[in-house]
């Protein structure tokens, strides 16, 4: 992009744009502590699930597979068809609602601990640290001229990132096409063009987002980061700097009576800024860039410990608690406020409805389509015939036999299979000729019914409407 001519600063939009173009690279410093442990546990949990679940077998197939080619979603014992889209919709509503609830209670818990962007950035940073060293070493390396050592470190880093990203892309595609076949075809170089495309597409994005863009994604690209503010209220737990305790900040010698010297608890060591993955200073108050990762809490607590001050100069707290110097008891009492109770009640109602719907889902689905190519026709014996295509979808995991019958007009009968067999999780189509004596219905459309009943279980039955045309 061309250099910005000076007159462009007249427009605020441009001023802002160029601001984040020249943004300084953030070099987060490694941090240890309670919250770092939490973050790593979550990273392990989510990634073991992500990389592992697609390899888990179940009933001779992949346990979790969103089979796009077959338009069927398998989740352990459950098989979802396009007709089940309502469950998907409700699941999305539940996720959105939980996000609302968690945000109202604990701020950006999702961002700090579970969001793939945070988790992969953390993993990529860990690789970077193992290869290039911690913050100061990396800053030095970046500033140094290219040398053999720098070249090797760079190759190692990008190589490791690339491999991990590729594996991530492969895993991703493995949730949409059976991963074992994908694996064998990858090794025999016979991947389908689109599979290969999506592996590199997803892998490439992982590499770009976690290796290069990092906090920029949270700051400029994530829609959630932009509207999370509306879910906050003064009783929301967020990572907060205790201004009254910390200020006036300033360097001091260890062990002096700093209060007498007019200083607060903050020693102005800037550790909290150095560990921050988004490069902000939490001491300036809550900012939308803060992803709530609590790295600054860990960092500052270590400093406090070294200085012999009580921990928690930066801590999880609420706006109101900081203002009125509350302890944990009052904070917790305020967490259960009407808004949170209402959110939780609605969330539980939706979850219960969802589980109930799933539990009572009939393992059989029937669709009747009259063959439009063949109009009503006369067959032997003077009977009128309509032809139907009967879709019998066995949504269960075992083969089933069903009895098929028709009703609705006097003398109605059908040609074709009266007993049909459908393998597990298969949609089978049967052609059925329905015959009626010509005078037993009115001219035009007549309502008839198809009944499909499982031979094994009476309750598994579908009563489906169709129209019978008489000339």
């Amino acid at each position, binding site marked *: *992009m061309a250099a910005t001519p000076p*007159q*462009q600063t*007249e*427009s605020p*939009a*441009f001023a802002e*744009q160029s601001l*984040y*173009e020249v943004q300084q690279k953030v070099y987060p410093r490694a941090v240890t502590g309670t919250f770092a442990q939490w973050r790593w546990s979550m990273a392990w949990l989510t990634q073991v699930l992500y990389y592992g679940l697609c390899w888990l077998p179940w009933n001779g197939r992949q346990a979790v597979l969103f089979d*796009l*080619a077959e*338009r069927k979603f398998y989740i352990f014992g459950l098989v979802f068809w*396009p007709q089940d*889209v309502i469950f*998907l919709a409700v699941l999305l509503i539940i996720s959105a609602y939980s996000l609302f609830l968690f945000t109202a209670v604990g701020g950006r818990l999702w961002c700090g601990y579970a969001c793939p962007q945070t988790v992969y950035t953390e993993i990529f940073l860990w690789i970077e640290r193992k290869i290039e060293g911690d913050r100061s070493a990396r800053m030095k390396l970046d500033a140094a001229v290219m040398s053999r050592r720098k070249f090797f470190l760079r190759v190692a880093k990008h190589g490791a990132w690339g491999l991990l990203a590729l594996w991530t892309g492969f895993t991703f595609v493995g949730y949409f*096409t059976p991963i074992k076949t994908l694996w064998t075809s990858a090794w025999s170089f016979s991947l*389908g*063009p*689109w*599979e290969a*495309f*999506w592996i590199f597409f997803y892998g490439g994005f992982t590499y770009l987002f976690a290796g290069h863009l990092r906090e920029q994604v949270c700051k400029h*690209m994530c*829609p959630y980061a932009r509207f999370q503010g509306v879910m906050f209220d003064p009783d929301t737990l967020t990572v907060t700097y205790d201004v009254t305790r910390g200020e006036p900040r300033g360097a001091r010698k260890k062990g002096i009576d700093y209060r007498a010297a007019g200083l607060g608890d903050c020693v102005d060591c800037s550790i909290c800024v150095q560990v921050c993955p988004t490069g902000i200073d939490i001491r300036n108050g809550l900012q939308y860039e803060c992803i709530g990762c609590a790295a600054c809490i860990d960092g500052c607590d270590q400093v406090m410990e070294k200085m012999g001050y009580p921990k928690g100069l930066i801590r999880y707290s609420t706006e109101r608690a900081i203002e009125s110097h509350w302890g944990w008891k009052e904070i917790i009492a305020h967490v259960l406020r009407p808004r949170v109770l209402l959110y939780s009640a609605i969330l539980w109602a939706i979850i219960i409805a969802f589980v109930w719907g799933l539990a009572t889902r009939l393992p059989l689905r029937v669709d009747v389509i009259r063959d439009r190519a063949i109009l009503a026709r006369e067959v032997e014996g003077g009977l009128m015939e309509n032809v139907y295509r009967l879709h019998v979808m066995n949504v269960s995991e075992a083969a089933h036999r069903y009895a098929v019958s028709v009703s609705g007009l006097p003398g109605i009968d059908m040609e074709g299979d009266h007993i049909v067999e459908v393998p597990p999780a298969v949609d089978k189509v049967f052609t059925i000729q329905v015959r009626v004596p010509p005078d037993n219905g009115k001219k035009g459309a007549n309502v008839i019914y198809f009944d499909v009943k499982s031979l094994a279980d009476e309750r598994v039955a579908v009563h489906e409407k169709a129209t019978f045309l008489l000339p």
Partner: protein
Amino acid sequence: MQKLLSILWPSFLVAGIAEGLFFTLIDPQELYLLGEPVRLSRMATYSLGFLCFWAICAASSLVTWYLLRSAAEVNRRVGAVH
């Protein structure tokens, strides 16, 4: 780069949603292209579908960006006022 991203990224998000909605409701094997049933594999249709959605959304973002330029900038390009 910044401009490119601000066009490509929102359209990517919206295309993802559009793709999901469209193909949950419609089976690619039931689509017709220029009067002929689509004979591509489902995987190919989904993928091409996504890229088309993305392109369409990006076109919309591009127009937004184009119309959002400030008066000063348009004038400068025209060369009339400076």
